[in-house]
């Protein structure tokens, strides 16, 4: 049996940052298990720029961002195994994994960091009616084919969903000679970042149809076209609004789902809203000594935030191994109030926080001119004015722990309120 202080599952941006930080925090025995044939995860296929604004104060491409962490990791002599699939993890932190070289491995860990990332929602999950021809791709699969394997996936493409990968792919397909005939978004607002709407759609005159969805896929062998309908405020297609678009490819960018099949095997409690584990201020799940960070925890908009969060997981996993993570039983719960879908972390143990605690959250709709209010027992702890909030972007609130300490708080709520001052 192999034995490590910390086993990190996943060698994408989350796993890399967590492992590096754990090492910097004084743990030498660390192993990363990565299922792909190289480190870097999904960043390797995200060849566009826009990564690292917060982290490096410059705009890197995905591979460049990954490269910096991979080199740091290798310089620090942190162990990793590629082409390695974890089959099972248990509550007592036994990891079972396989690869072609080492065969079947049983690895005993003192702490585990979950960094498996997420997968894409599919056509099946949406139950889009119609035929089942070839030519229906999730945006990420298309991205891998085009950017890493060098294969084109279609020449006349319709895109469902305005998530960032979909928008990025609209531009990429256009640059590679395909015709992108439109992007439909079921919500009344775009799913991706505003700048991607501008530089990926607007720049190439690709129409964005808000409050529209694909209601039928046609084509016996290969996609021949899609029917697009307008939807009402309940996201139900409105009869009579159907429009047919001839195309050979349908690209889906309709959401990401944290991949927690392994977490379930260790009986880790998940939040139905995020699909990811419930964690405390140290990024520790409901199973002691198992930590989670990155998109396996909740889907992030910027990789920079993944890095920040994962460092915290790495640092705290190291503390856990050294017996310096405390659990005296005093907790403050974070409660999403009006307008907030979820908050990560879910639990704060002040004894483990030095100065500040960062709360990440997403709002449930588009808001203009609102206040984000952090409160407990109707007493306001912090207030932030926001000109614009959108569900596609994560919000971060930093709270000085001195504002929480010594008040006997059992929970804090974050809610939105109209800003009367504007």
């Amino acid at each position, binding site marked *: 049996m192999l034995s490590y202080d910390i086993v990190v599952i996943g060698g994408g941006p989350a796993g890399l940052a967590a492992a590096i930080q754990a090492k910097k925090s004084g743990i030498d025995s660390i192993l990363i298990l990565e299922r792909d*044939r*190289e480190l870097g995860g999904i960043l*390797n296929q995200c*060849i*566009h*720029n*826009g990564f690292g*604004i917060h982290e490096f104060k410059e*705009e890197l*491409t*995905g*591979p*460049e961002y*990954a*490269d910096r962490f991979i080199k740091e990791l290798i310089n620090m002599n942190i162990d990793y195994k590629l082409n390695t699939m974890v089959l099972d993890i248990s509550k007592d932190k036994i990891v079972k994994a396989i690869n072609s070289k080492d065969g079947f491995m049983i690895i005993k860990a003192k702490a585990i960091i979950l960094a498996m990332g997420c997968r894409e929602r599919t056509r099946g999950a949406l139950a889009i009616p119609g035929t089942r021809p070839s030519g229906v791709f999730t945006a990420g699969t298309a991205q891998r084919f*085009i*950017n*890493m*394997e*060098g294969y084109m996936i279609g020449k006349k493409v319709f895109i469902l969903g305005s998530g960032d990968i979909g928008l990025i792919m609209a531009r990429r397909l256009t*640059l590679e000679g395909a015709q992108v005939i439109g992007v439909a978004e079921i919500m009344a607002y775009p799913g991706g*970042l*505003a*700048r991607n*709407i*501008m*530089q990926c759609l607007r*720049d190439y005159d690709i129409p964005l149809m808000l409050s529209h969805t694909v209601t039928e896929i046609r084509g016996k062998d290969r996609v021949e076209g899609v029917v697009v309908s307008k939807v009402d405020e309940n996201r139900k297609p409105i009869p009579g609004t159907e429009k047919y678009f001839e195309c050979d490819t349908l690209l889906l960018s309709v959401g990401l789902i944290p991949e927690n099949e392994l977490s379930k095997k260790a009986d880790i409690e998940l939040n139905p809203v995020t699909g990811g584990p419930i964690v405390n201020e140290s990024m520790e799940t409901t199973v002691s000594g198992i930590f989670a960070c990155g998109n396996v925890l909740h889907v992030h*908009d*910027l990789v920079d935030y993944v890095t920040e969060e994962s460092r915290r997981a790495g640092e705290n996993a190291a503390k856990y191994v050294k017996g310096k993570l405390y659990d005296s039983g005093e907790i403050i719960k974070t409660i999403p109030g009006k307008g907030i879908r979820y908050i990560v972390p879910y639990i704060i143990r002040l004894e483990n926080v030095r100065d500040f605690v960062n709360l990440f959250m997403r709002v449930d709709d588009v808001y203009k001119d609102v206040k984000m209010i952090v409160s407990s027992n109707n007493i306001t702890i912090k207030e932030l004015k926001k*000109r*614009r909030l959108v569900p596609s972007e994560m919000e971060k609130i930093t709270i000085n722990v001195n504002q929480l300490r010594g008040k006997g708080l059992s929970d804090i709520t974050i809610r939105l309120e109209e800003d009367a001052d504007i």
Partner: protein
Amino acid sequence: MKKDMICIVCPIGCHLEIEEDEKSLLGFKVTGNQCKRGQEYAIEEITNPKRILTSTVKIKNAHLSRLPVRTNKPVPKDKIFECMKEINKVEVTAPIRVGDVIIKNILGTGADVLASRDM
């Protein structure tokens, strides 16, 4: 005339407003930006829009058949498709290091095309 735009300099995506302003040294007045780059972007977007171009080039003797590349500076928006034609002509051979210049001064834009990773 006032013009609305969304800043694409970084993923924050500030909503900018720009209008001509004879009193300003720059000739324009920009509002809504959180940093100085937003102002520069707005003015450039009106006078000479530019974009960072990212793509891939063919690569031989590597574990993948495509190498990701980027321009190190924005190139004029109206030259993007022409730049793609140049990029498509290139085939490199591994090993390549991140930052290696793949095309020097592409189409005289002053921007170099660089490798985005080791391969």
